[in-house]
């Protein structure tokens, strides 16, 4: 099958912003971590939602549906979802 946009081909490469420093210095502290061991989350920041995460109005219908199908006893459902590690 041919996707409808196949004819659009490649986008022109954009100039790289590589030389710029994108980060204010106060954002850097979270990188000063040791590079070993699985993450237990102990020193991770509580993440914030991105700007613009506000709910759009027509999502209400979906949320109604979710309220209808979501497991009623969330705590028990979460507690019961226990998996063995895999690959």
């Amino acid at each position, binding site marked *: 099958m041919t*996707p409808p*946009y*196949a004819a*659009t*081909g*490649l*986008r*022109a*490469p*954009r100039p*790289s*912003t*590589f030389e710029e*420093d*994108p*980060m204010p210095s106060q*954002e*850097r502290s*979270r*990188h000063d*971590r*040791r*590079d*070993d061991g*699985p*993450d*237990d*989350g*102990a020193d*991770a*920041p*509580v*993440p*914030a*939602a*991105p*700007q*613009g*995460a506000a*709910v759009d109005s027509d*999502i209400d219908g*979906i*949320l109604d549906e*979710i309220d209808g*199908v*979501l*497991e009623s006893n*969330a*705590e028990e*459902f*979460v*507690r*019961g*979802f*226990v*998996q*063995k*590690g*895999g*690959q």
Partner: protein
Amino acid sequence: MTVRRVMGIETEYGVSMPGVPTANPMVLSGQVVTAYARSRGIRSTRATWDYATEAPLRDARGFDMGRDLAHPSQLTDEWVLDEDPTMANVVLTNGARLYVDHAHPEYSSPEVTNPRDAVVWDRAGELVMREAVGVLAGSPPGVNLYKNNTDGKGSSYGTHENYLMSRATPFADIVAHLTPFFVVRQVMCGAGRVGVGVDSRLPGYQVSSRSDFFETTVGLETTLKRPIINTRDEPHAVPEKYRRLHVIIGDANQCDVANLLKLGTTSLVLAMIEDGFITEDLSLTAPVASLRAVSHDPTLTTAVELADGRRLMALELLEHYRDLAAAYLDERHGGTPDEDTAEVMHWWGVVLDHLRADPMSAAREVDWVAKLALLEGYRERHGLDWGDSRLRAFDIQWSDVRAEKGLFHTLAAAGRVESLVGEAQAADAMATPPEDTRAWFRGRCLARFPEAVAAASWDSLILEVPGQTALRRIPMLEPLRGTREHVGDIIDSAADVNALLDGLVATGEAPD
């Protein structure tokens, strides 16, 4: 090369018996495999797996791990095939393998030649699991399956990608140029996760479901001390010519676009590595810490530090890889790539532009964004903190394979997710193999002569021929042979398995 190469996706599904958290997951997984096999008339005592050429301890860096040093879970070639349901293992007529891997049912897709087909046969796998759940629902409480990668309590299970590469490419080049890419690609193909830390000890939301579980940069293991670059060297093909790159760092995707990009952009980066196109050193000072830091920041403002001192946002590094790929395609392919490559480059641009403008604007294309947008709506409606168990329940149920229970499917049914593969096409791929790889031979032989196939593997088929005492092993070490073009007519026109063998030998498709 372009995005086109032999590839495939393996997915271990989360498995649970509702209300019975102590149920043995190996037994449940065996029931899943057996239920599907029976419902499709596949006899699991036939079509079993031929382990003769498997070598899970072969390391791409050029040595074998001693068997006595290996964790028992790494000895994937030693399983005894018998009536034990926890060893259930079947080959499907679409060329896929459906079996119990450790404590999870796994669907390993057939070999395909492009990212779009990888999505098609991965979606077929979701429908295989959905059908199994439907069959088992007939015996309450049934078994539920989840296309996710963690229970949020410390356990993780994998979604692996496989890419056939040239053996001539030095492995060190792959490590050098692929590692930074793998650290940042999660922002366009992460599945999202409620909870931070392997056991979700901090409340919150992160980009990838797998990132917290990676502990090292390069290694052979897949079940412990998981590496960003896995060195398993089992090509399942002519070993002198090919390497199969076994990628264990990806999340299970439900969004078609994110899934397409995961396979397509990785294939393009591999093409650039094989062609020696990337000369710049993009290596990171602390890949594992950066992997987690990027995952822990859904605002995408966190920077990663390159070895040369530059600090870049994940998105910027990803844009750089995209620009490199565009330049590579211009230079090597005259800017007019095939339609598969055009499709990947199109979506790569769209998704990066959306993420750049406002991460939430990628909600139609990227799993973690789609899930977060819905979670934020749910949080606002009910006034929930990130630590609320309803949000963790939401996260688990997001990946429920059932159409009427899976929250992703609720969102998709409302037309709020970009769909690249129609439901009918995915359903057709449950029983039909891809035409352009050896999966055609494997799957079609099983469909036409199920009684005669004694065992199969990725690179062999063992036939039991009436009147002959010895089994006939047909090697399939070239993934691009055994296609419909090569063997389609022979399989279709053979009246029986003797005629099939005669036809294969006469055309040189099988040794005399």
